[in-house]
């Protein structure tokens, strides 16, 4: 069985923020609903044309292959946490 290492970063789309050094990011939850927030650029990593937002992992649900994550701060909707599928996470490189 192949072991996959996930980093605490989830895929997001990005746009320019309101000020220099800021990005507007949009993170979809497991239902596809997007949560929008503005963060410092250094919270977003880019790899292979994709962008990933650093998040906190609160709870793992192996049965449904999803995780409850905490955003760096409150999204525009008021959400702080959301369930995302494991496939949203950035995968670590094999050691």
């Amino acid at each position: 069985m192949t072991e996959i290492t996930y980093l605490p970063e989830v895929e997001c789309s990005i746009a320019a923020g309101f000020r220099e050094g800021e990005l507007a990011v949009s993170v979809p939850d497991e239902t596809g609903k997007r949560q929008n927030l503005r963060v410092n650029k250094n919270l977003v990593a880019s790899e292979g044309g994709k962008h990933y937002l650093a998040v906190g992992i609160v709870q793992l649900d192996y049965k449904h292959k999803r995780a409850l994550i905490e955003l760096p701060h409150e999204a525009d909707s008021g959400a702080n946490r959301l369930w995302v599928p494991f496939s949203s996470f950035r995968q670590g490189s094999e050691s």
Partner: protein
Amino acid sequence: MILSDREIEAALEHGFIKIHPVPDRALWTSTAIDLTLDATLLKWTPKPAKTGARQQIRPNGPGEFNIKDLMDDPSWATKIQIDPRNGYELETNAFILGYTKEIVYLPNRSRLAARVEGKSSLARLGIGVHVTAPTIHAGFGFKEGLPEKKLGSPIQLEIFNISGLPVVLDVGMPICQLILEEVRELPNKGYKGQFSDQTVFAPPPKPGSKSRQRPK
């Protein structure tokens, strides 16, 4: 010291605090729990006195003043139910009273107090949820004579909009956050203030009952 999510979870599990219903896991943060908006709102709508005199509120005037009497009095306040489909539009510069759906009880013995604070997402839209009175004192939700399992009260919110934008409030939306803090020593008394039992409104006063209106 502010309680972390793990400490809040443990406190709930061991009955040191009661929040019912316990908000969904997605409504927790590292140091707070979001509470949600109940369907009932109250808007101050004073009607002109029959004499034509201007009515005033005088909290520190002669005689007894009890704001709950005003809230229950239809000549001062109107109860509103939020439309489940369209929400309630809070106009700019409007002020309403609302409640959390969740009831909260902070047993005195637990040495825990709390603060109810706004949410930054709503703050950016000019929505505030309290007017300088965020403290939920140790003992909140206690009511003499009630069994432990029936204790707890919703938290009353003073909601206002200063953004210049009309903002729609929906039933069940995350409206505020509850931050729990340790109280250093056991308080002498449990909280028994007039809002320790903030159950949603009492019936309107019967005709002829004493009113707290103060015509000038």
